[in-house]
């Protein structure tokens, strides 16, 4: 059934039990993003650390209001990127964006995207792609701001 291909069990699990939800201190940058189409909102904080000469995503925390897809996506994203270097996390964000733009034609790589592959079905529903991307876009924005701060 199509509903199950959209709302895979992994998505429903993350929706029911979101990881890393709830805003945490300290943080380097905080952003608030909304999806103007439906009103979904996310407030997201990032903390970077720079131990090895390359910035690392030390923490991501968020507070979000929205549908199962946007909630689960923020949860999956934070799982995936915490602990990665910023370039690694950015390339994951690109990979996830590619998957969302694939119209359901791409077979995602679980090695790379982990639970993110569960969102492959979302790509077939144009109205829901923005839901899945909300958290990712917020993270990219927050990270860019945090990096700018470091440069200042």
């Amino acid at each position, binding site marked *: 059934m*199509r509903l199950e291909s959209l*709302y895979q069990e992994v998505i429903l699990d993350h929706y029911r039990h979101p990881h890393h939800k709830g805003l945490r201190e300290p943080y380097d940058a905080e952003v608030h993003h909304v999806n103007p*189409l439906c*009103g*979904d909102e996310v407030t997201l904080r990032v903390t970077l650390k720079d131990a090895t000469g390359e910035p690392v995503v030390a923490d991501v925390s968020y507070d979000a*209001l929205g*549908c199962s897809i946007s909630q689960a996506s923020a949860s999956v994203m934070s799982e995936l990127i915490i602990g990665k270097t910023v370039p690694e996390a950015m390339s994951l964000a690109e990979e996830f964006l590619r998957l969302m733009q694939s119209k359901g034609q791409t077979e995602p790589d679980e090695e790379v995207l982990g639970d993110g592959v569960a969102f492959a079905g979302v790509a077939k529903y144009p109205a829901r792609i923005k839901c899945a991307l909300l958290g990712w876009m917020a993270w990219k924005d927050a990270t860019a701001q945090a990096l700018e701060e470091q440069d200042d």
Partner: protein
Amino acid sequence: MTLDVARIRKDFPILDRQVRDGQPLVYLDSANTSQKPRQVIERLDEFYERHNANIHRASHQLGEEATAAYEGARIKAAGFIGARDETEVVFTKNVSEGINLVAYALGNATAGQSGGSGRFRLSPGDEIVITEMEHHSNIVPWQLLCERTGATLRWFGVTDDGQLDLSQTSQLINERTRLVALAHQSNVLGTINPVREVADAAHAAGAVVLVDAAQSVPHMPVDVQELGADFLGFTSHKMCGPTGIGVLWGRRELLEEMPPFLGGGEMIESVWMDHSTFAPPPHKFEAGTMPIAEAAGLDAAIDYLTDVGLDAIRAHEQDLIGYALDALGTVPGLRVLGPSDPAARGAAIAFTLEDVHPHDVSQVLDEHGVAVRAGHHCAWPLHRRYGIQASTRASFYLYNTTAEVDALVQGIGQAQRFFGGV
């Protein structure tokens, strides 16, 4: 009088469609846009196949026929809403454009632009009054106008059961008030507002009244004189007509005193290199080539609705709303926004469901062929007022049936089961 809904449905080819792998379409999104009967689709075809030409300026037979079709639609629209005559009917793209037309005319008057009188000039201290239940298109143009002119925006709040809070009338509407803009019917709550009462207060204070009738004109008899409106906007695509055309009705003397909004061909009287004079209304407000075939389609839509009867459509929708409110009332965890009395409502019902997000509700409904809208329905402040982020909205029209309400309620149950335990 009861509608022969089975016969009406035969006029709408799209209602025979199947969606999402063989589900019969249950279209409950007419407040968003209505479906079109064959009579309207055929009129569009006929216009393009037989009469297509530009209007007012083509010196040939087709030009005459196209002009007659376009101006005939204006006469039809004027009669439909009780305008004094067709010179009070300005064709626009939609209601948003109609509201912007008035807002920009006021702003242009304030800037001292020619082509109107000083009557519409705004100054700091002047007030514009709207309501908390407006569609963004009846909020944002006024915010922008206030920004440009220094006028102050004020608004009616809404009560817990989705009515305008009229206890605020005497404070809100006063000698500083220049314009009051409100929806005839809320696109979310379904509430039908007491426009006459508000208009009388506005007129007593010397203000003009603009009515957003996008949600009412398609569904019930509307008479601009009875409402006490000075401006009223409605749009073709929500009333069985094509997209791309709407109407801004305005009292003739007001339209005459307003400077133009868009400049261009057809709206002028005379043009020199350094200045222009303008055509009388309504043409003063119709710059460039207008939606001509769409006007013919709107004409056909008005014929269609008039043949069925607006009173009969309203009665049918009242029955459906009563039935739907009862049926939705049996769903655990479901909260209907707006008045509980069907007579106080139009044909839209928005609701929230405990533990299932509106986007997810609408997705499950869509999977079962039931088309609704989820989100803030371009009424974000209203949703904030009720402490919610979004809602699911089912909206009805002359072609909907109680069986479709049953399909909606069944689909909601499926959504609850699917997301159960969240």
